């Protein structure tokens, strides 16, 4: 194993993620009940803790595309957000090369602005220079394909369908080379044509010496893009290895 080929980009060392949810528990408390809680010093009653990732360790290397699979609520998205540095790690640690960027379907840009201005703003927010943005803007809009049905790029984003918005967001994030790109179900929302295009783009990003993490419930898109797979179940890794093997185990588990 030559060291050059095996440069780690993300290392998770027994990482635990616990997040707090505000407003959980019983809603509609009376003012009197709230006051009683403060007076009796009950620790913030409407904050609940969710232990979503319970000790995960793995090493991801340059040029790998890793699929994250597991049933709903198994901690996949939480793990991605922790890798991106958006959620703190309660115990253990996650180390990453550069700044991993998370690309999720629910990450909103500015809904009142037209698509093309969102492209400019998003690119600037990723640290591009104004000259770069000018150069890449048209390419991003073309890639997203939002103009295929007329001039949508000059309409506010709130008028977009969820698929269109997700495509535009993916196109913006994919316009820059990332050391580590984290994709949360983004590819599942587009239509077949866009999916193919974005899978090609993911492969390209990977070849340009990045690491890609992909969370998806679509077995096909995981098989097509990832050669390694991590299977999470209730916050723990159940399997980590070549996609075929892990998928086989996962399918067997689901059929039970």
């Amino acid at each position: 194993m030559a060291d050059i080929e095996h440069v780690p980009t993300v290392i998770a060392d027994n990482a635990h993620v616990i997040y707090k949810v505000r407003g959980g528990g019983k809603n509609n408390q009376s003012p009197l009940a709230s006051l009683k809680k403060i007076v009796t010093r009950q620790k913030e009653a409407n904050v609940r803790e969710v232990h979503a990732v319970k000790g995960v360790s793995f090493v991801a290397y340059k040029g790998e595309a890793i699929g994250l699979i597991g049933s709903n609520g198994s901690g996949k998205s939480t793990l991605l957000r922790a890798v991106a540095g958006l959620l703190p790690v309660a115990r253990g640690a996650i180390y990453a090369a550069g700044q991993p960027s998370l690309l999720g379907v629910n990450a909103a840009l500015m809904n009142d602005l037209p698509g093309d201005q969102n492209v400019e703003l998003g690119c600037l927010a990723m640290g591009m220079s104004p000259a770069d943005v000018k150069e890449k803007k048209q390419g991003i809009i073309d890639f997203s394909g939002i103009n295929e049905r007329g001039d949508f790029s000059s309409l506010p984003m709130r008028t977009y369908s969820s698929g269109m918005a997700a495509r535009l967001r993916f196109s913006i994030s994919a316009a820059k080379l990332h050391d580590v790109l984290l994709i949360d179900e983004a590819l599942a929302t587009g239509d077949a044509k866009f999916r193919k295009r974005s899978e090609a783009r993911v492969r390209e990003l990977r070849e340009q010496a990045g690491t890609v993490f992909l969370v998806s419930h679509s077995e096909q898109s995981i098989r097509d893009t990832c050669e390694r797979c991590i299977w999470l179940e209730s916050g723990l890794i159940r399997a980590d290895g070549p996609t075929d093997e892990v998928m086989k185990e996962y399918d067997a588990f689901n059929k039970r």
Partner: protein
Amino acid sequence: MPETAVAESGTELSAKELARRHGLSSSGRRIRLPEYTRQLWRYRHFISAHARAKTSSALGQTNLGTLWQVLTPIINAAVYYVIFGVVIGTRGGVDNFIPYLCIGVFVFGFTQSVVNSGINAITGNLGLIRALHFPRASLPLSVALVEARNFLTALVVLFGIVLISGEPINPEWLLVIPALVLQVVFNTGLAMGMARLGSKMRDIKQLIPFIMRFWMYGSAILYPVTRFTEHLHGWKLALVEANPLLVFVELFRHALMENVVLAGTPTLLWTEAAVWAAVVGLGGYVYFWRGEKGYGRG
């Protein structure tokens, strides 16, 4: 049982060792202040684009659009003119009360709107924060920029009001520039402080209207500052006169009006303003930076 990939890597190094050897950093690490400042400078285009976007999306839904930037201060002044100039007809012991009042209202309004939008700078942009990585101070900076631009428009209206009311233009008007610079620095620090406070303690937002009203009555906006000097003594007077907004309002009055009784000598006011701008500007920035990794979490 979970299999770990560490064993696969073929090395006996601990994860921490491996990370250190390849220069990986823990994702929750805070960067140092000078580096953070440099990063912010690199994001200056983002900050101005975000400020532009905010203005156009706020006014884009209205029919008159950017005309509101001029209309809002004019209507604001008209309301006070009708109430104090026409209905009550008060002079409050000031020779030229309308410009006196308008300067106070406008200058206070500048800081007030910075506080109001600063407190939402983080909580109102969670989508952007969770999607993209950029120095978070860009957001309160963009707020400060939007409000500074609005205030510049308002200043033009204010100059008009002051001129119409019979105050002559003289070289002293140039003093508006340093006063403006100091207030912008003060407001920028305030916006950053408020942004972190608003993201940490959601409850504070409910209290802001009351705090701001209290602050306004303490800044001699609706009545002449001599009310304070006549009725307050000792520590109460000292407290009121140290109020930064009172200081800024007085500086603008000093610059734009002749024969106006100030709360203190101009030298004292300028010193106070400079100290406030330095303390709040720098303090707000450092306070915001210390929370950098916590924004958008949880």
